[in-house]
C-alpha cells in the first residue's frame, strides 16, 4: 500500500499547492484572504460547510460510535443535523442582516460592538479557544493514530501529527479562506465517494442489510435500540446533544463564518438545503460500517477496528484513497477551525491591515502549536470529545442569540449568565461539579438554566 501512497500522496499535495497558488492570485486585501471576499457561491459554500462539519469525526468517530453504542447514534447526530439545517435559515438570515451595515471580521468583534464591552468579545474568544483547540487536536490525533496503526513502525504517531499540522498551517496561511474552501470541496467529494464504496463492499460481504442487522440482533440486540448496550443514548444525553449540535452554527466560528461569507442570502439558503442532503448521505454509510464492525470486530480496540474496516479489508488502491480522504478530512476541518480562530483574533486587533494580518497569521501558528501539543495528550474518544466541544461552546449561545435576535436586550446580565454557565461546565468536566444535578445531566441542567434565565431576561421589560 505504501507505493500507492507514494504515488497518490504527492498528487494530493500537488493539488493543494495548485489550489493555494490559484487562491492566492485572487487575494487583493485582508478581506479576500480572511473572508474570501464575501463572495462565495452556493456549491462552494455548501461543500465547505459540509466538509468542515463532517470530518474524521464522521468517517472514523461515527462508525465506532455505531459499533459500540448502536443505532441511537443516528438520533444523536443525523436528526440533530436535520434540525440544525432548518435553524440556519433563521439564524443565518438574522446574523447577516445584523452585520450588513458593519465591517464583519468575526463574531468576537461583532459581540463587542453589540454589547458595547470588551468582555463580550473576550468571553467568546476564551470559550472558542478552550473548546476548539481540543476539537482540532482530536482530528489530528485521530488520523495520526490511524496512520500509525496502518504503517506500523514507519514513524511515531507524533511525527504524523506534526506533518499534518505542518501541511495545514502552510496551506491555510498561503491561500487563505478560499484555498481552504477549495480543499474542503475536494475532501467532501472524496469522503462521500469512499465512504459509500466501503459501505457497499461491507454490505455485499454481509449479504445485504437484512442479514447484517439479523447478525447484529443475534450478537447484541441492545445495539438496535436506545439507550444502547452501555445505556449512553438516554433521553437526557440525546436532548443535551441535540441542543449542542443545533448551536454549532451559532457558536462555532468556522461555521458561522461560512454563513457570513456567502455571496447572497439566496446562496446561503440553497447551501443549507445542500448540507441537509449531504448530512444524510454521509452519515448513513457509517451506520453500515458500524454495524459491520459490531458483527466482525466485537470487543476490538478502536484503532484496530478502523484500520481493519477502512483499510485492510479493501484493495490497496481503495485503501490508499481512504487514507488520503481521511488525511484530507482531518486537514480541512482543522485548518478551518484554526483559520476561524485567526479571524476571531483579527476582529479583536486594532491597527493597519498589514500588521493586523501578520499578527493574525502568528496567532494561527500558535493555535496550531497548542492543537499539536494537545493531540499528544488527548483521549481517543473522537465523538465524545467533539461533543464536549459542541456543548462547551453552546454555553455561550445566549450571548450570540440575544445579540442577533433581541439586540435591545444585549446587556451585561447575559454575559454574566453565560460566563457562570461556562465556568460550571468546565468544573463539571474536571470533576469539581457532579455529573448529575437534581438527577439531570449537568450539561442539560445548565442548558435549562440558561434557557430560563435568558427567557426571563428577554421577557422582563426594559434594559436589565
Amino acid at each position, binding site marked *: 500500500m505504501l507505493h500507492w501512497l507514494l504515488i497518490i500522496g504527492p498528487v494530493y499535495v500537488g493539488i493543494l499547492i495548485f489550489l493555494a497558488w490559484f487562491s492566492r492570485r485572487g487575494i487583493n486585501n485582508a478581506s479576500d484572504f480572511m473572508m474570501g471576499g464575501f463572495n462565495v457561491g452556493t456549491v462552494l459554500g455548501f461543500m465547505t460547510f459540509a466538509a468542515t462539519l463532517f470530518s474524521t469525526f464522521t468517517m472514523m468517530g461515527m462508525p465506532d460510535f455505531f459499533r459500540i453504542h448502536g443505532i441511537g447514534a443516528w438520533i444523536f447526530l*443525523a436528526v440533530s443535523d436535520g434540525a440544525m439545517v432548518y435553524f440556519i435559515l433563521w439564524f443565518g438570515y438574522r446574523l447577516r442582516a445584523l452585520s450588513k451595515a458593519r465591517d464583519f471580521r468575526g463574531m468576537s468583534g461583532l459581540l463587542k460592538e453589540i454589547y458595547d464591552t470588551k468582555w463580550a468579545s473576550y468571553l467568546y474568544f476564551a470559550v472558542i479557544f478552550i473548546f476548539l483547540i481540543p476539537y482540532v487536536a482530536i482530528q489530528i490525533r485521530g488520523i495520526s493514530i490511524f496512520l500509525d496503526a496502518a504503517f506500523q513502525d514507519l514513524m511515531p504517531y507524533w511525527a504524523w501529527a506534526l506533518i499534518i499540522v505542518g501541511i495545514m498551517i502552510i496551506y491555510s496561511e498561503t491561500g487563505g479562506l478560499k484555498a481552504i474552501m477549495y480543499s474542503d470541496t475536494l475532501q467532501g467529494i472524496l469522503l462521500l465517494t469512499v465512504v459509500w464504496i466501503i459501505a457497499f463492499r461491507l454490505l455485499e460481504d454481509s449479504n445485504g442489510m437484512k442479514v447484517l442487522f439479523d447478525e447484529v440482533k443475534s450478537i447484541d*440486540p441492545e445495539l438496535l435500540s436506545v439507550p444502547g448496550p452501555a445505556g449512553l443514548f438516554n433521553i437526557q444525553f440525546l436532548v443535551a446533544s441535540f441542543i449542542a449540535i443545533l448551536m454549532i452554527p451559532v457558536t462555532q466560528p468556522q461555521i458561522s463564518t461560512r454563513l457570513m461569507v456567502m*455571496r447572497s*442570502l439566496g446562496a446561503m*439558503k440553497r447551501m443549507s438545503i445542500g448540507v441537509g442532503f449531504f448530512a444524510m448521505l454521509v452519515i448513513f454509510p457509517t451506520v453500515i460500517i458500524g454495524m459491520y464492525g459490531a458483527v466482525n470486530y466485537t470487543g476490538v480496540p478502536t484503532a484496530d477496528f478502523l484500520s481493519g474496516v477502512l483499510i485492510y479489508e479493501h484493495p490497496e488502491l481503495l485503501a490508499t484513497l481512504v487514507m488520503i480522504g481521511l488525511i484530507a478530512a482531518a486537514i480541512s476541518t482543522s485548518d478551518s477551525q484554526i483559520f476561524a480562530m485567526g479571524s476571531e483574533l483579527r476582529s479583536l486587533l486594532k491597527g493597519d491591515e498589514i500588521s493586523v494580518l501578520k499578527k493574525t497569521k502568528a496567532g494561527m501558528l500558535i493555535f496550531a502549536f497548542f492543537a499539536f501539543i494537545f493531540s499528544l495528550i488527548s483521549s481517543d474518544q473522537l465523538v465524545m470529545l467533539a461533543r464536549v466541544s459542541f456543548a462547551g461552546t453552546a454555553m455561550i449561545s445566549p450571548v450570540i442569540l440575544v445579540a442577533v435576535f433581541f439586540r435591545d436586550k444585549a446587556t451585561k446580565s447575559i454575559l454574566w449568565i453565560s460566563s457562570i454557565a461556562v465556568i460550571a461546565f468546565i468544573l463539571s468536566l474536571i470533576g469539581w461539579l457532579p455529573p448529575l444535578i437534581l438527577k439531570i445531566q449537568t450539561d442539560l441542567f445548565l442548558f435549562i438554566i440558561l434557557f430560563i434565565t435568558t427567557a426571563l431576561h428577554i421577557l422582563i421589560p426594559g434594559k436589565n
Partner: protein
Amino acid sequence: MKRRKRIIWISTAIAAILLSVITFTPLVIPLNNFKPELLGMPYTLWAGILVMIAYILNTLIAIFVHPGNDNDR
C-alpha cells in the same frame, strides 16, 4: 400572497419544533424496542431517517417562503 407566504414560513417553524419534540418521544425512540423493522432496519433507525427527511423537506419549503430577499448580500 405575502400573508400566505408568512403563514407557511411560520408553519415550517412550528413543524420544526414539533419534529424536534416528537424525536424524543417513544414515537421515534422507544426504549429497548427495535420492532417493527423495515427492510431489515430497526425501528429507531428508519423512524430517525424519516424524521431527517421531514426536516429536509420542511427546510426546502421554508426556503421558498423565507422572508428575506435572495439578492441581499
